[in-house]
Every structure is written in C-alpha cells, then in structure tokens.
C-alpha cells in the first residue's frame, strides 16, 4: 500500500467536507470551512509548482542541454521572467501588467480560437466521408440546423406562427440529450469521488 497516511488524510478530509453538505451544524462547519480554505491555498501552490516545473524543469533544462528547440525555450523563459519580475514589482492590478493579458495573452488565444474555427470548418467538409452511419448523419444534420439557429437568420419566422412555434421547440431539442449526459456525468463523478474517498483510487500518490 502506497502512502497510507495520504489515503487516510484524503478520507478524513473528504468525509468532513462531504458531511458538511448534509449536516449544517456549526461545529462541523467550523472545521469544514478552514479545510476548504486550505484547499484554496494548496490549489494556488499547486499552480506555482506547475509553473516552476514548466520553467525550470522543462525550458531551462532544455536550454542547459542545448536541445534543438532551445530557441523556443529561450522565448518562454525570457518572457516569463520579464512578466514575473514586472508583476512582482508592480502588482497584478497595475495596468501595465494587465496589458500582458490584454495585448499578449488575449490576442494570441483569440487568434488560436479563430484558427481553430477555420480548421474545424475544413474538417467538417469531410465529416460524412468517414462517418456515414445514421448517427453521423444525425450529428451532421444537427450541426447544420443549430448553425442556422445560432445565426439568427430564422428571424423571419417570427411572422409565421407555426414556424415560430417550431423554432421555439427546436431550441429545446438538445436539452433532453444534454440532461441525460449531465446525469451520466454526475453519476460518474459520484462513483469516482466515492472511489477516491474509500481509497480505491489514489491519484494523490505519485
């Protein structure tokens, strides 16, 4: 058994947090609330660990080892330290620091999203060539239909009562399936959470 202490901690913490959902007793909440606050701190530290590992464990290591793609790593490391030092000095709410998000992060991510849209559109061209079964056809037709719905060009239907009713009903079409999917996800989350709490799954062990 690997790290029984960790398993015990996970169980105790999980049990306290879980019971707090159903028993709103003040003493229990007095324990539960700090635990949740610890989790916030730990989540922050986990993010820091991930960043440190990215910079020092990956990119600086690549630079040291002079791998073929070390130029990319140089860019990452330099931009990281520039932003980090400026941010530590000025603070994250400083407009100049926030410009990093506004003028670097946002345009790049938005552009990536735009390129993704073009790529998806191209991929959609050949969809039915590969998936020509009835489920694929349903998916294909549904995609086209909801593209039209999302585009808003069915506005003209507002003048036709029957069509308006049908458009309104069509708006509800995905809800049934989505609800089933949500229930499936919830049941899966439930099972996974229980497995973690009882120690059957231990993702915290490295």
């Amino acid at each position, binding site marked *: 058994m690997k790290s029984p202490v960790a398993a015990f901690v996970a169980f105790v913490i999980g049990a306290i947090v879980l019971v707090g959902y159903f028993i709103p007793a003040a003493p229990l909440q007095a324990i539960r609330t700090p635990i949740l606050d610890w989790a916030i701190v730990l989540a922050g530290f986990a993010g820091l660990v991930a960043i440190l590992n990215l910079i020092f464990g990956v990119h600086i290591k690549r630079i040291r080892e002079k791998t073929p793609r070390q130029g990319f790593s140089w860019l990452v490391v330099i931009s990281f330290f520039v932003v980090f030092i400026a941010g530590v000095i000025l603070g994250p709410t400083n407009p100049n620091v926030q410009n990093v998000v506004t003028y*670097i992060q946002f345009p790049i991510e938005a552009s990536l999203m735009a390129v993704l849209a073009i790529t998806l559109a191209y991929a959609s061209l050949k969809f039915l060539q590969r998936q020509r079964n009835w489920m694929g056809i349903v998916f294909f037709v549904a995609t086209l239909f909801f593209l039209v719905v999302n585009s808003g060009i069915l506005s003209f239907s507002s003048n036709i009562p029957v069509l308006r009713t049908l458009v309104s009903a069509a708006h509800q079409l995905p809800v049934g399936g989505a609800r089933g999917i949500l229930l499936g996800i919830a049941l899966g989350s439930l099972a996974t*959470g229980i497995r973690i709490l009882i120690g059957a799954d231990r993702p915290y062990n490295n």
Partner: protein
Amino acid sequence: MNIDVIWTLISLVLTLFIFSYLFGDNPVFRIATGIFVGAAAGYFAVVIIYQVILPHLVVPLIQGSILALFPLILSGLLLTKLSPRLGRLGNVSMAVLVGSGAAIAIGGAALGTIFGQVRAAIDAFGSQANTSGTSPLLLGVEGLFLLAGTVTALAYFNFGGKEQAGQAPARVAISAWLSGIGKFFIALTFGAIFAGVLTAGLTALVERADFVIRTISTLITG
C-alpha cells in the same frame, strides 16, 4: 510613440503570427506561442502570489493565525513535488486537495445535478412553461421529448452486457433499444455543441479580423 500604440502593434504582430498557422507550422507561429506561454505563466505566478498566497496564507500568518500553519506546512510539502526524490512527501498535500475535491464532486453531483435534473425530468410536463402561453398539447409533446431524451441518453451510459455463447457481450434487448434512441439524442446534443464551438470560434475570428482592420486602418490614417 504612445505606449498603447506599441502594445497594439505587439498585439497585431502576434495575431498575424498566429494566423500564419493557416499555412502550416512555421517559426513565427512558434515565436508567438513561446511568448504567450512565458507571459501567461509569469502573469499567473504573479496573480497566485498576490491574490492567493498573500491573502490566504501570509496575511493570516502575520496576524498570528495558528490555523494558517496547516496550509503552510501542506504547501511546503507540496513544493517537494518538484523534487523527484522528495516528491512523495507531497502526497499528503495532494491528498487534501484530492480528498476535498472528491467530496465536493460527490456533494455537487448529488445535490446539484442529480436531484435537480431528475426533478426537472419528472416535471417536464409541469406548469412552468405554461406561463409562455404555449398550448398544452405542445407542452406535452415537448415534455415527452425531453423525458425520452433524458432517459434514453442515460440508458446509453449503461454499459452492462449479457454474454452470449460464442459472441461478444451485448446489451439486453430493452437496454439496446433505449440506448439506440439515446444515441439519437446524444448525436443531436453533440451537433448543437459542435455548432456552438464553430460559432464561438467564428465570433473570435470576427473579433480578431475587426481588430486587424481597425489597427491597420489606424496606422494608415495615423
């Protein structure tokens, strides 16, 4: 030159670098992504320090909170994850995170989704839609449609099978029938989601195209 113009130019260049990916992977695309990764990581680190660690850990410690010692210790243990040799010490911290996350997932799924959605599925024929003035017949059809979609889509996630001699396990008849219908509803929902992804991306494309046009226009017109 105004600093904002510089920032805008940087943004324009980075946008064009990313769009160059339409012609395939290339160095300028990698330059843009490299800058993005480093800058985002740096900003993320600053935000964590200022808006998580300081208010939730450092300030309480300074104020003498004994309870803050626990996250301090746990955080210290978590930092050992950076070391392959000492990484196991961080398991306890990870256990706190995972244990609380698992409990949160259980409670949220049970109380938030399962109860709420099951009740909504039961009430699919309910009166809330009556306020819209829709005819009762249409409401009934709609409710039936939603209920059928919910039940059959859920049935699709039942992977229990019955063994047949010499054949691969297969669903029982009723389950196969329901899941077949469920696949229709799931395909329908996925189609809607895919259309949403496409439109979201296209919206981003509109926004970026507008930015490029406006920026170039500004540069040209001065």
